[in-house]
Every structure is written in C-alpha cells, then in structure tokens.
C-alpha cells in the first residue's frame, strides 16, 4: 500500500493554476524526486506536502491518514530547505535539538538523539559552533541532522544541493543516497538537476507547468520517456530528435531532409499503431549512436549511416561527435580514442533497439 499518496492535487494562487491535478503514490522507504524546469510547480508541490501551502483541492495522504488540514508540525514530516534555514542565534546542537525541545522531549533523551544524529552525519565536532562558523557542506549536514533527529515519516528536501559547488554536490549526493539506504527513510526530493534525479531516485516525477508529465523509475524515464518534453529534459547531452515519415510498408522511417535517409523502425513501437506516410519524431540517445567498434553485439535492429563529422567534443572519458542529419544535428557518443576527426566522413552505427518514436502533434510517445 502506498505510504504517501497525492490525489488530484490542485493549487491556484490568484487565479493562476500552479498545480493542475497531481497524482503520485510513493511506497514506504521510497525516494521520490520531483524534477522539472524552474517555475514548473515542483517546490509548490513540496510545500503542499509540508503543509506550508494549503491546497485548493485534492488530498494528501501520509500513512493512511489524510493530512490536508493538519498543521505542518503535526504531519510528522521534516524538511531540508534550500537555504538550510539554520537558526543563526543557536549552536548546531541547539538547531538540531530545537524540534525535540518544541515537542517537550526531556533533556537527556534530546541529547542522546542529537548525539546519534551527529554521529550519523559526522558532525560531532561541530555541535558547539554557530551556523555562521560553518562551511556550506557542514551547514548542509546540520540541516539534514535537524531533519534526521526527528525520525519523521517523510523527509522533504527542497533543492538542498543547489548552493554547493560542483565537487561538494557530488559528495553530498552520495551521502544522501547512503543515508536513504541506511535509514530506510521515505524521501521526497525536489531538484531541477536531472543528474541528481537519475542518481538518487527510486521514482522520478517530471513536472512541467504544473502538469505531471511522467512518473516512473529512473530507468523508465530515461529509456522510454512518455513525451518529447521528458525525452528532451532528462539526459545530458539531450536525446537526438529527428523528424521523419513512416515508410509505405511501415518497416522504416524516412528522415526529412534533402537526401533520402532511411532508419529501420525501432522495435519499441508496434507497427499496427503507425500508418504509412505518418509524420513522426524519432528519439535516440547519444550513446545509442556509436562507431563500429562500440556496436552493441546484442542489438537487434541496427542501421549504419555514413555522415560527415562536423564537431568533435572530447570529455576525457568519452568523445561526443556532432554530425548533420535530416536538417538538424545529431550527437553521438564514441570512445575517447575513436580517431574521429572533423571534416571527414565516418560510419555512425544507430542502435534502433534503444530508439523511441513520438507523435509530433501530441508530443506523446507511440508504443
């Protein structure tokens, strides 16, 4: 049974619809990441779960109880804020203990709980300091400690890593993931960073303009995006999107462009759902376009195209190769030492097992 359930949540502020019917369920111990571009309503959604923003309609259920009308402090949830929101006038210890103090937990228990949380997060040596004396990463840990000490039903994270530098962000990402594994906590996490979403989530919900685009495991979201928005938003570099039409015998897609180029029909789409001559958009991830040596031996449907190389972008581990195709550009992922050079023609292997097809009008995926 779902532990956290959002049923048809609506939120309007001043006649403006911020959330337009959100339905999400999360099992106990799950890690739900809400992701989307800024202004998509993900932080508002989190605030409604926290109880800091009332909903216009719909239900929020935590552990079988409808919590819509419960005060934030009565919902048994803890939140880590983007700015950490540490009380500047209290020590780290005071910050972590504050919630327990407000709940009237006796001092010895409080101290034991603080010590335990501090040990988990390795901030025992910082307990007597004030927030202003801490670095960004340390503040982040204290903010997490403050949530952890309460042992809540659900943890809420509001873009907690966005104020950290790149290196620290990767470290803290791993830390949060480890924390989730070790404590078995149920977490709802908001971010605009799709890498954070992919690496940490057990479930991702992609939002755009207050509408849920897709909910699924990171693998589903990445492999079979529900629509063009999700396809484009998740993954870096972005998925290659190529316009074309279905061939008359429905066995291939003929790409738009001055020269006729045919790609075999991906097996992810069933032939019955297509009509000959239908306009489609083919989506294929950069790593599904390789050179001959990286060709996946298990790949069933493969097309090789000779294309002139326009640009080569080495990243160290991989080399991204950009080539013109069908009036646009495609990005392919090659080995670092693939020997591709700009200006020369090169054989690009398209693994169409991993390609998906979208309907251009509705932008939905065709399966």
């Amino acid at each position, binding site marked *: 049974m779902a532990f956290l359930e959002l049923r048809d949540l609506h939120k309007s502020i001043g006649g403006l619809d911020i959330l337009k019917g959100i339905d999400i369920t999360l099992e106990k111990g799950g890690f739900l990441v809400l992701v989307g571009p800024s202004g998509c309503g993900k932080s508002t959604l989190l605030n409604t779960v*926290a109880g800091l923003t009332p909903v216009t309609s719909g239900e929020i259920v935590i552990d079988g109880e409808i919590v819509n009308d419960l005060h934030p*402090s009565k919902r048994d949830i803890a939140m880590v*804020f983007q*700015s950490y*929101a540490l009380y500047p*006038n209290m020590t780290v210890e005071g910050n972590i203990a504050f919630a327990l103090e*407000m709940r009237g937990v006796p001092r010895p228990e409080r101290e034991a709980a603080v010590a335990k949380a501090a040990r988990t997060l390795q901030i025992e040596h910082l307990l007597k300091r004030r927030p202003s004396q801490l670095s960004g990463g340390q503040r982040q840990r204290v903010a997490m400690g403050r949530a952890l000490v309460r042992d809540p039903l659900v943890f809420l994270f509001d873009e907690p890593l966005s104020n950290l530098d790149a290196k620290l962000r990767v470290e803290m990402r791993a830390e949060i993931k480890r924390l989730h594994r070790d404590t078995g906590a149920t977490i709802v996490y908001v971010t605009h960073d799709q890498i954070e979403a992919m690496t940490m989530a057990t479930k991702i919900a992609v939002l755009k303009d207050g509408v849920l685009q897709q909910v699924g495991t990171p693998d589903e979201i990445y492999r079979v995006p529900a629509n063009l928005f999700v396809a484009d938003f998740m993954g870096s570099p972005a998925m290659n999107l190529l316009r074309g039409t279905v061939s008359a015998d429905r066995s291939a897609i003929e790409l738009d462009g001055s020269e006729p180029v045919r790609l075999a029909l991906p097996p992810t789409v069933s032939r019955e759902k297509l009509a000959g001559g239908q306009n489609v958009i083919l989506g294929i991830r950069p790593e599904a376009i390789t050179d001959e040596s990286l060709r996946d031996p298990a790949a069933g449907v493969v097309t090789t195209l000779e294309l002139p190389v326009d640009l080569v972008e080495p990243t160290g581990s991989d080399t991204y190769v950009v080539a013109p195709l069908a009036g646009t550009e495609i990005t392919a992922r090659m080995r670092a030492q693939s020997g591709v050079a700009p200006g020369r023609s090169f054989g690009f292997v398209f693994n169409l097992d991993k390609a998906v097809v979208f309907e251009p009008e509705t932008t939905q995926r065709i399966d």
Partner: protein
Amino acid sequence: MSAASPTVSPASARIARFVIYGLLILLAIVYLLPFFVMLITSLKPLAEIRSGNMLALPQNPSLDAWGKAWGSACIGVTCAGIKGYFWNSIQLVVPAVTISTILGALNGYVLTKWRFPGHKLVFGLMLFACFIPFQAVLIPMARVLGMLGLSNSTAGLVLVHVVYGLGFTTLFFRNYYEAFPDELIRAAQMDGAGFFQIFWRILLPSSGPIIVVTVIYQFTNIWNDFLFGVSFASGERAPMTVALNNLVSSSTGVKEYNVDMAAAVYAALPTLFVYVVAGRYFVRGLMAGAVKG
C-alpha cells in the same frame, strides 16, 4: 587612494585632505562649543560668571552649583532641586521605551511573517502615524487621558509616548524583518514552534541591531520631549525637560546661570550616556535596516 590615482598629484591630495579634516574639526568645535560653555559655566561661582569671559576656564572650579541644582534649587514654590523630576523622567522613559519597542517588534513580525489581507493598508496607516504633528493630537489626547483617568500622571504620559512612538518602532522592525528569511520561520513552524515561540526564540535573538536603533531613537525622543510633558503632566509629575524650563524661569532675584547650566547637563546626561554606549550599533543598525528594507 587619491594618491594612487594618476589624475591627482600627491601635493593636491594632501591639500584636499587638509581642507577636509580642517572643516571636520571646525564643525566639531561648533557643535561642541555650547556643551563646553555649559560645562565650564556650571563649574564657576556666580561672581566669576558675571565678570568674566564666557569661554574662559573657571579659576576656582567648584561643584556647588551641581549640588544645588540636584538637591535644593527652587522650582516653582518647592526648593528640592531637580532630582524628583529626574526620577519622574526615568519612570516615564523606561516603560515607554520598553513597551513601544516590544509592540513595534510584534507589529513588524506580524506584518512581515504572518501576513493577512490588508496588511499593506495597516502598515500604511501606521506609517502615516509618523507624520502626524504633535500639536494636532494634543487636545484629543487630553480628552482621552481624561476619560481614562490618567490625566497628569506618569502612566498617562507613558501611554501617550507608546501610542505616538508605535508608528516609528513598527516601521523600524518591519523593514528589518522584511529581510529576515521566511524559510527560517517555516522551518520553525515545521519544528513545532508556535507564534510566540518563533518570536522569542528565533526572531528576537537576531534583532540586536534594530532593537538598539529603536531603543536609542525612542529613548532620545521621549526623554527630550517637552510638549507632551508640559501638556499632560505638570507640577510634581512633570518630567525633567519641563522641570528644567521651570527652574530657569523661576529664579528668584538673581539669575543663577551656574545652577541652570548644571541642571541642563543633568538633563542631557542620560541621552549622552545611551549614545556613547550604543552609538556605533545605532549607525550599523540604521544602515542594515535602510539597505535591506
């Protein structure tokens, strides 16, 4: 800095600095001169004042005038010095400053962190209160005090100053709390803190600079107030400023300048003390409020 700039030669930079410091010193002297005259006059015997130069240092400095001003100078018909009135002013200023500061802080807290429909209008009206001239409220205020039975009492005067000061204290605290992060309030709410717990535990401990500003501002205004004092508290209940005026105007026969001056310095001491102790926080707090507000 100017020396490093290629367009200003070291010589002209030195001249500029000389002019600037010269002007500053001159203005400081102009400002300090009255206080200097007050101090030395209060230390001189009457004869020396009458014969000598106003700026001359006292030849036989004595504290007789100070003692008299404090304990035995005649104000009206009673000759017990100004000490009773000094005490009146303390009794007035401490509760008036405390209450108006706390209420201002609460107002600021509600107007920024617990916004309600029409909060802008309420704040606008409170701001408007800052611009009401003293004279306009004298007669209505006298009526109100009469109805409350607080005429000619320190409590009545405290009420007048609290009401009149509320606009200013609210303005100070509102602007300060406007810059205070909302997330902290939300975090405290989720931690289970209530309205007053958030105020006492989170907000007030972070309000040091603005409390200092408000206290100094209110203290100076209330201590130095003459109009409300003379209108609503006369005779025995009069505050220091009113008593000082009465002392100076009720001298019998000989005008005792030294006693007048000593009494005036007594009247100035508390505000002077507050400025010296908390002055640097005043500037800092005022800046913080101004920039972020």
